[in-house]
Structures are given as structure tokens and as C-alpha cells.
């Protein structure tokens, strides 16, 4: 409540409002509380809140800010399109380069970075026989299938149909 110079002006003010003083106090207090709430909400709510829904819209960008690790087949196609065209003619056409060769983003950024050398394990990961595997997949039991030889002694990974 404002400070009154004299009781006379106070009484005059209340008479002009034509309301009992306790009601005036309650109304002013309510307005004060609502205003304080609105100001606090303005300060505390993140600026992008409600952009897409009841959450911080900037969170989407923050999650998307991470940089990819796997480069993707398109990146490989920029330099190795011949290999990819050859691969597309054979059964391994559905494979991504990075499925066998490993993570490639570092190689895309600097071609001097080499991939890890592949082993028989990379073939067996998919082709080792298992009763759970679907029947359309060519499977072998490594221990019995031409024992002692490496997969690439006979098979060409990029042209798997060319089997001797």
C-alpha cells in the first residue's frame, strides 16, 4: 500500500474506490502474486520451450549435434564407385561397405587412415551354420568346410557368386 500523507487523503482514496480497504488489499496482493508468477515463469522457462510441444525445442538440435561415426555407403561411392558397381552385381549387394571393413568416417576425412585387416571371422559372423539362421542364407560349418584353408583362398568377398 502506498504511504499516505495524511489519514484524510487515505480515507478520500478509499471513498473514491468505493471498496472496503481489506478488499483493496486482497486485490492488490492477488495481482502482485500473479505478476510475480508470470515474471518468474518468463525467467525460468527455456526460450525454446513449446516450439514443438511441451518440451525444450532446442533439445532436438542438441541431440542432432553429435557427429556420425559410420560414413555410409554414399561416402564410399565418391571414390570407390567401381568397386560398388561390381558389388551391386553379386549377392553381397545388400552389404554396406562398413559392415565388413569397419567404421569409415575417419577414412573419409583422411584417406591415409587404413581399415583393420579382415579375417575369416568377418565371413563366419554371418555364414557359420546355425539352426536359427534362415534357410535362404548360405551357411557352412567352419570346422568341416575345407579345413585349414582361409575363406579368401577360394572365395572373393566382393563377388561371392564366383565360387570354384
Amino acid at each position, binding site marked *: 500500500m502506498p504511504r499516505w500523507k495524511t489519514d484524510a487523503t487515505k480515507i478520500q482514496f478509499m471513498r473514491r474506490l468505493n471498496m472496503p480497504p481489506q478488499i483493496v488489499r486482497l486485490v492488490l496482493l492477488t495481482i502482485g502474486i500473479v*505478476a510475480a508468477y508470470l515474471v518468474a515463469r518468463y525467467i525460468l522457462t527455456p*526460450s525454446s520451450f513449446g516450439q514443438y510441444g511441451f*518440451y525444450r525445442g532446442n533439445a532436438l538440435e542438441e*541431440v*542432432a549435434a553429435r557427429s556420425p561415426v559410420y560414413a555410409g555407403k554414399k561416402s564410399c561411392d565418391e571414390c570407390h564407385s567401381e568397386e560398388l558397381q561390381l558389388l551391386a552385381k553379386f549377392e553381397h549387394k545388400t552389404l554396406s561397405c562398413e559392415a565388413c571393413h569397419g567404421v569409415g568416417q575417419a577414412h573419409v576425412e583422411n584417406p591415409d587412415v587404413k581399415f583393420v585387416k579382415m579375417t575369416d571371422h568377418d565371413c563366419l559372423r554371418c555364414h557359420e551354420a546355425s539352426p*536359427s539362421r534362415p534357410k535362404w542364407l548360405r551357411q557352412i560349418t567352419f570346422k568341416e568346410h575345407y579345413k585349414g584353408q582361409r575363406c579368401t583362398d577360394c572365395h572373393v568377398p566382393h563377388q561371392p557368386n564366383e565360387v570354384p
Partner: protein
Amino acid sequence: MKKPSTRRHVLGHLGGALAGLLTLPAARQAKAAVQKFFVSSQAPKGYDPTKHKWLMAIDIERCIGCGLCVEACKTENNVPRSSYYFRTWIERYVITKPKPGSGETRGEVMVDSPNGGMNGFSPNSVPRADNILKSFFVPKLCNLCEHSPCAQVCPVGATFDTPDGAVLVDPNYCIGCGFCIQACPYGCRFLNPQTKTAEKCTLCYHRITRGLKPACVEICPSEARIFGDLKNATADDPIQRFFESGKALTMLKPHLGTAPRVQYAGLDKEVR
């Protein structure tokens, strides 16, 4: 001497204060725009989440259980390598033949997922092949629910359904209470021991916003994972071909009312 307060003055001041409050939303929008302009972000430019609707589908017939997707997911998203934390994993179902004379059509159902299937599945840990009625692999991931229980229970609004179909966690607002982990009926969430925040499949949000496929879809050698944008699907889009293939589609736990969006083709009724 100060002017005496009249009803006119008081109402005038109140009106002014109200007008000031009404300009706050406009002021906040201007502030956000200015902030966006000056703060440079690693996020891809020009991606509008309202113009996409991403969906993943799984073709059980195509999954060969190699575990490359699990490994790719861990590498791509820096998920802890320990065998408790997965954003996606593969389960192996083995249904044995019924005992002779039992009158049942199926025997025992065995489910395992050693290290999430990341290193493949040993054929030695299941019954002999002539004893198996049916066996298959089920890749699991966030089911991208339409009514996500995880987003509902979050006490701080740190997890939410985005307009483009992903369910994301805001790592800056997550308090690590673990309610969402309890709420997810598919077990798709975990508490990252390093960041102490809840984590889950983001559909590789950082990849799809750059026009790349999610790491697991990129790496899947047998096209068991199908991914696409429902709002911008072309005729030869994998997700379009998948829906037009006429395969019977099912979802996981549809009776819970979470409206899971991830579609499974060729799913056995035993799969939960």
C-alpha cells in the same frame, strides 16, 4: 506535492502493467531468435522436424543374427560396452518340438541374448537341430510408441515424442531418476553409468537429420531392418516396398495401449 491517487490513475497503471506482460511472449521469441543466430551449433542446418515422419520396420525372415547392428549402435552412439547397456539388441528364440504323446503342438520356448547378440550366437548352446521346431532372431529397439509411457512419467519433461517420430531424451534436463526405465514395457532404456542420464534409441537422430540411415540400418547386411520417411516416401523407398509386400505386420505388446509404431513382419506369436 504528489498527485492524489484516483481510480483513473490506478486503473491506468494496472492496464500498463497488463500490456507489459502481454509483450513478454513476443520478447521471448525475439530473444530465442537472437540466441539462435549467435550461438553456432553442430546440428545440421535446414532440417525441419515437422516435415518428416521416420519409421523402422523389422523383417524377421531376413535377420541372420550376425549382431553387426548391435555393435554398430554401440560404436555410433558411444554406448557403454558392458553387457547391460543396449539401445538395440537381438534375441534368439528357439522353440523345440513337443514331447511325443504330449498332445501339444509346440515344446519349450527358449530365449537368449548373450551380450545382446553383439558377438553373434553360438549354435552349440541350443538343442540339436533335429529337436528344434522353429528358431529365429528378433532384433529389438525403441518401439517409437504413439503414446509413450516413458514420456508420460518423466517428472521434468526431459523425454518427449518429436514431431518426426523419434522419442528423445534431453540430456541437459534429465535428472536420472529412472522412472522412464521402469515405465518402458519393452525394456528399451538404461541409465548411462557415465552421464547418469537415461538413454535410449534415438533412431540415430544425428544421422537421419543429415540424410544418413541409422547406423544399424546402414550396417545390416541382409536388409532385415527397414527404415524410411513416411511423409516423403517414394515408390522405390524400402519402407514403401515393405508395406506393399503384403507381409503380415504385427507390433510388440499391442494390448498395452502404447501404440508402438515399429512394425515386425513374420513375427511368431511367442515373441513378447
